[in-house]
């Protein structure tokens, strides 16, 4: 999953590098590819946050039960916010899906083979006209140079039509996209903070339950190898928390990428920055999902 996001964006970036100088459609393509990869990465993070929320509450329940036997109302009070958050997360996933569809549609437009197809079609049309000309007056209507020029002009006209459609779309939806990306920035910040809290609480409780209590009890450890693995897992959880902080930059970078696109100064460096941050999100989400299995 992670590789496919980055590979897709890398293909667009290579295309941008090759065609640098006439990169308007390539800039839209880079933005669209980054946007659809961003939506997919956010979805993975939402799925991971679903798991961390449930696991953190389960650990809180165990920690509380270790102090005093819990009652059914107490269990329900602890589970209530979980259910509410799961509902919100599902809503956010549906929105991420729509956002991904928006950017994939933009990619379909930027990646359209229509300009090349038009050139081929015009060559066919000119070939047809030449065949008619040969029959009517014994010579083709267009020579080879004219034939090539017609194909190229057709290709340019269709390319311009696509660029125009992309420009119109960004102009028409500029305010909405800006608002969307500002909200995405708030979302990733809030989501990262929630996941961070869940991970920290879970780590503390697991350290107590799986590492300290078995070690400090009078009786010897029942399974020393399991204890070693548990301790490693608990201590390494801190690295995920650190990664999460860098992941939260992704939305800000996406917003800045959009502003650069609108201003006509979208650079390779900016897109590479987005790739690095998307990589962080996917990396954190995959670590969290792997741990919860």
């Amino acid at each position, binding site marked *: 999953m992670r590789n496919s996001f980055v590979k897709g964006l890398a293909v667009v970036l290579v295309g941008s590098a090759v065609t640098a100088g006439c990169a308007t459609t390539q800039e839209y393509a880079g933005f669209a590819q980054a946007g659809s990869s961003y939506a997919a990465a956010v979805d993975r993070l939402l799925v991971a946050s679903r798991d961390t929320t449930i696991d953190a509450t389960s650990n809180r329940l165990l920690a509380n039960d270790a102090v*005093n036997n819990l009652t059914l109302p107490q269990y329900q009070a602890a589970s209530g916010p979980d259910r509410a958050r799961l509902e919100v997360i599902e809503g956010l996933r549906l929105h991420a899906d729509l956002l991904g569809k928006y950017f994939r549609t933009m990619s379909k*437009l930027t990646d359209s083979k*229509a300009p090349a197809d038009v050139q081929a079609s015009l060559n066919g049309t000119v070939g*047809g006209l030449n065949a008619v000309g040969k029959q009517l007056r014994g010579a083709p209507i267009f020579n080879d140079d004219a034939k090539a020029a017609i194909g190229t002009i057709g290709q340019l006209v269709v390319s311009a039509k696509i660029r125009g*459609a992309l420009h119109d779309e960004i102009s028409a939806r500029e305010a909405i996209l800006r608002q969307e990306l500002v909200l995405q920035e708030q979302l990733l910040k809030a989501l990262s903070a929630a996941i961070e*809290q869940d991970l920290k609480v879970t780590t503390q409780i697991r350290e107590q339950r799986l590492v300290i209590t078995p070690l400090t009890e009078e009786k010897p450890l029942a399974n020393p190898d399991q204890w070693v693995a548990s301790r490693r897992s608990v201590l390494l959880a801190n690295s995920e928390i650190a990664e999460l902080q860098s992941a939260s930059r992704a939305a800000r970078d996406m917003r800045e990428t959009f502003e650069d696109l609108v201003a006509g100064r979208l650079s390779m460096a900016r897109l590479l920055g987005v790739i690095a941050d998307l990589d962080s999100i996917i990396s954190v989400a995959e670590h969290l999902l792997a741990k919860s299995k």
Partner: protein
Amino acid sequence: MNRDELLAELRRLELTLHSVEVQQQFTGEQDPEVRRRFVAERIELSRMVGVLTHETLGSIQEQLTQLEPQLRNGIEDMDAALESVQNTVAFLNALGKILGLVGRVLAIV
């Protein structure tokens, strides 16, 4: 103190109440009433953290949902633009085929 600051403070407090030292202290507490009250308060604190987190995420989700009709319009417009481009290609393909046919007919005649 605004809502974000309150949430940050409650989260910090929750981490303190779930620290190893506090957990060990109350696990070893002899008085069941003290243990019961501590657990009740800790559950309530976690519930408040959960509610505030839910409200923050819910508010963002609500605002994002309001943008969805516009995103759908964008998808429709881009689909229409793509279809228009593809129609141009299809038209030129058809024209080329017709002219080719005309040429062949003229060659026979």
